[in-house]
Structure formats: C-alpha cells, structure tokens
C-alpha cells in the first residue's frame, strides 16, 4: 500500500494539468467543457486523497453536476462557429502566455517552502468538522453566501429574461365562422 498514494497523486496531477491545458488549448468549445468537467472530477479525486470526502462530493455535485451543465447550456445557446482557431489567437496571445508563465514560476517555487504540520488531523472524514465549522463560527458568512446565491439567481433571470412582446396575440380562429 505504500506506493498507492503517490501513484494516485501522480496520476491525478497528470490528469488535472493535462485537462487544464486541454481546456485552454482545445479548438472546439465542447471539448473544452468536457475536459473541464474531467479536470474537476480529478480534482475531486485529489480531495479524496487529502481526506476531504465531503468537499470532494460537493465538488462533483456542484462543478460537474451544475456548473459544467450550465456552461454547456451557454455553449449551446450561443453559436460556436467552426472557425474556432479564428477565435483562438489574438495579438496579445504571446504576451499573455509569457506573463502567465513568468508569474507561475516563482509561485511554484514558493510552493515548495511549505511543510506539513507535525501533527496531522486524524484521518476519517471531514464531515463533522466541516458541518460544525459552517454552522457555528461561519454561520453568518454562510447566510451571507446564501443571500449572494439568491441575488445571483434573480440577477441571472432578470438578465436573460426577454421583454414580453407588447403586441397582443392573434385571435384564435373562431370555430363558428366558416372559412
């Protein structure tokens, strides 16, 4: 069993980085969306590896089950022209890539300056701890978050809702009158 953790980690890392790159590089937008869902799934695996099954479950529930589907809806309601690579490049592409890479390097280097704590939390589920934290210390932010969600929902509906046609609907044919 000694090797299982690192092997899993390596596998998931490959999948996550590959999936993320795929999202950014894929020519077709549906591919991007599906690869994003794939990345999210592997991220959930990462959470399980870290011992946070609850977060992993939420991750799948929300990101895969809701957000990806929502984005697919967005994809399907807007025209995705086949000239995807026409949409791909722009003048600042090399600059953008350069800035991202330059910023990534020091951060990844800094990442290796962290160390695990001496005593780790006992394995075996984060459900109770998470629930306790959310409903005690973080009860107020939790409520605020729910208000945020509600307002986002209302806002999205208002944004997308079409103006009702001002013209009254045409009268249905009168069955009594001969045509």
């Amino acid at each position, binding site marked *: *069993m000694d090797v*299982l953790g690192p092997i899993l980690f390596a596998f998931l890392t490959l999948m996550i980085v590959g999936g993320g790159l795929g999202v950014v590089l894929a020519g077709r937008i*549906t591919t991007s969306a*599906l690869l994003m*869902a794939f990345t999210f799934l592997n991220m959930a695996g990462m959470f399980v590896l870290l011992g946070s*099954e*609850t977060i992993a*479950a*939420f991750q*799948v*529930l929300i990101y*895969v*089950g*809701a957000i*990806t*589907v929502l984005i*697919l*809806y967005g994809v*399907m309601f807007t025209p995705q022209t086949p000239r995807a690579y026409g949409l791909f490049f722009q003048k600042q592409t090399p600059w953008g890539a350069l800035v991202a890479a330059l910023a990534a390097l020091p951060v990844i280097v800094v990442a290796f300056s962290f160390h695990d704590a001496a005593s780790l939390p006992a394995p075996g*589920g984060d*459900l109770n701890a998470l629930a306790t934290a959310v409903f005690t210390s973080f009860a107020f932010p939790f409520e605020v978050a729910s208000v945020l969600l509600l307002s986002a929902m209302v806002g999205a509906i208002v944004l997308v809702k079409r103006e009702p046609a001002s013209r*009254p*609907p*045409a*009268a*249905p044919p*009168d069955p009594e009158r001969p045509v």
Partner: protein
Amino acid sequence: MPVGPFGLDPLVWAIIRLIVAVVLVVALILNSSLLLIYLERKTQAIMQDRIGPYHTGPFGLLQTFADALKLIAKEDVRAGQTDVAFFIAAPALVFTPMLASYVVLPFAPPLVGADINIGLLYLATLGSMGVLGIVIAGWASNNKYSLVGGLRSAGQLISYEVPGILSLVTAVLVVGSLSMVKITESQTGPITNIFIIPLAFATYLVSALAETNRTPFDLPEAESELVAGYLTEYSGMRWGTMLALTEYGNVVVVCSIMTTLWLGGWNGPGVAAVPILGVVWFTLKVYALILVFMWVRATLPRLRIDQLMSFCWKILIPVTLLNLAVTAVLLIAFPTTLLPVAIANWILLVAFVVLLPVLQQRRLRHLRARLRERTATASLAS
C-alpha cells in the same frame, strides 16, 4: 508485512475483490434490467387489458433476452456529421455514475460495498453526474430533436434534483446520519421513517420519477414532440445502454434509496438471526416500489415541459423547503421525541394532497379567464 486472506498480498486481495464486485454488480444490473423490462411490459399489458410478451420462452420470459441479443448483434450505426468522440462517450458518461451508485447500496448486513460516512451525499452526487452525459448525447447527435431533448432532460434533472435532495435532507435530519448502513440500522422496529416523514417520502417519490425520466415526467422520450429526444440517433447496444440499462439501473438506485431511507432497508423478520436474509427483504421492498413506478406509468398522462418546470419550482420546492424547515424546528424544539415531527408531517401531507388540486383548479380558472379576456379584446381589435 500484513497478509490478507488466502495468503495473498492485501493489495492483490483488494484488486481481486474489486474485480469480483464489479462483475457481480454489472451482472446484477444487466439481469435486473432484463427482468424489469419484462415486468414493465407485462404489467403495462395487464393494466391495459392486453397479454404482453408471451411467445419466447415460458410466459414470454425470454423475450427480453432475445431483445438484448438483437441489440448486441445490431450494426453500430452513426448518422452523418455526429460528433464521434462525444457520441461514443455519452452512453459511458450516463452509465458510469449509475454503476458507481451500487457501491454504497446496503443490500444486507454482510453485503455492503462500502459503508462511507457520506453515503447519501455520494449517491446524490452521482445522480447529478448523469446529466452531463445526456447533454453531451444531445449535442453530439447533431440533430435538433436530440439537442432540444438533451437540454430539456438536463433542465428537468437539474431542477428535480433540488426537491429530491431537500427531501433526502429531511430524512437525514430525522435519522442523524448520511451513512446508508446507519440509516438502515436506525429503523429496526416496525415504525420506519415512512410513518414519521410521509410528506418527504411523497416529494422524493415525485422527484425520483422525474429524475429517472419515468412517466409522467418522461419528456426526453416524448415521441409526439421530439421523436426520442437525445436517444434519437442512438441504436444498437449504445441505445440499450443508455435507455434500458441506465434507466432501469437508476430506477433500482432511487428505489433502493427510498427503501433504505423510508422503508427500513434490509430490516425484516428473521434478519437478526440470518443476516443474509436481508437481501430478500431489501429486494422485495425495492420491487414493490418499482411496481408503484410502473403503476404510475400506466395511470398518468405525460406533462408538458412548462407544466413540469413550474410544478417543480412553484410547488415541489416550496413544499419541500417548508417541510424541511418545520422538521428542523421541531427536531430542535423536541430533541427527545419524533412524535411532533410525525404529526406535523402527516398534517402537511394531508394539506398538500388536499390543497394542491384546489389551487391548481383556481389557477386554471384564472388562466382561462385571462385567455378569454385576451381573445375578446383581440377579436374586438380585428
């Protein structure tokens, strides 16, 4: 070095167990699907005063096997301009989460794949994943009926997930655990949860019908409007996987959830002495619920998409939310007894059943009046 059974390395033992389990579960799903299709056809036939399949095998028992063989033997057809990769991936995306659900189903005390402490959450999670495959299937078919069907299904599934999960949460509040085994173990007596929170059971039943695309919520397969929805372009075993295996597999899963949460799962006479007897009780209860599903199918007509959505958002979600709030408050107020919760839930159930038709009637009258008004003004204008 720890040693597993039969002198095997634990890792190897685990892998062997995994393979055996997967094979068993797939076989189970396949067989139960075949059986369920037969059952469905027979029950529908009986309820419609027909005979149903009777040629192949005794009482037509082998009819579905023959159908399955035909599906497997069929040519793998793809319509032109389908998105091949997605077209192939979609059935797998629908099937896999359903398959994964079986891991946590508690068939009997010795027969549980994994008792994880977030079992129910895990099931809800997997339930939400199938949507992805359906949307992809609709998209990949490159056919407007498929696309509309896929989007409708996705909208329906996502919407009905909300009341479904809220009903589950109500049950979880009463039991106090997300683990399927613990939930089962909490209902050893004759008073199972269905007597305590009947309204949650009713709302979950409705959501489950919608989540499994069963009548009266089987819009994706609304032939008169959409051909066969996202399934239009599928044929052969891909179609078989998506429709037969997944649909009936999902029915089994949701019925198992209901059995576990409300009907006491494997509990029944004799289980304490002979644990493996639990499988019998569990299966019996699940099949009873499936028969209810089939009964509903034979009885109710299909809803329109707008009726379906407004029923979910305007009626089901408010009712489940109210139920959840009332249950939570009563549980806090009376921490020692479940009696107030039960009374409140029964009252709410009766109110729901009685008030719903009344309100619907009033709404319909209102709508008809408005329509008449508009017609009158329109004819005046013309």
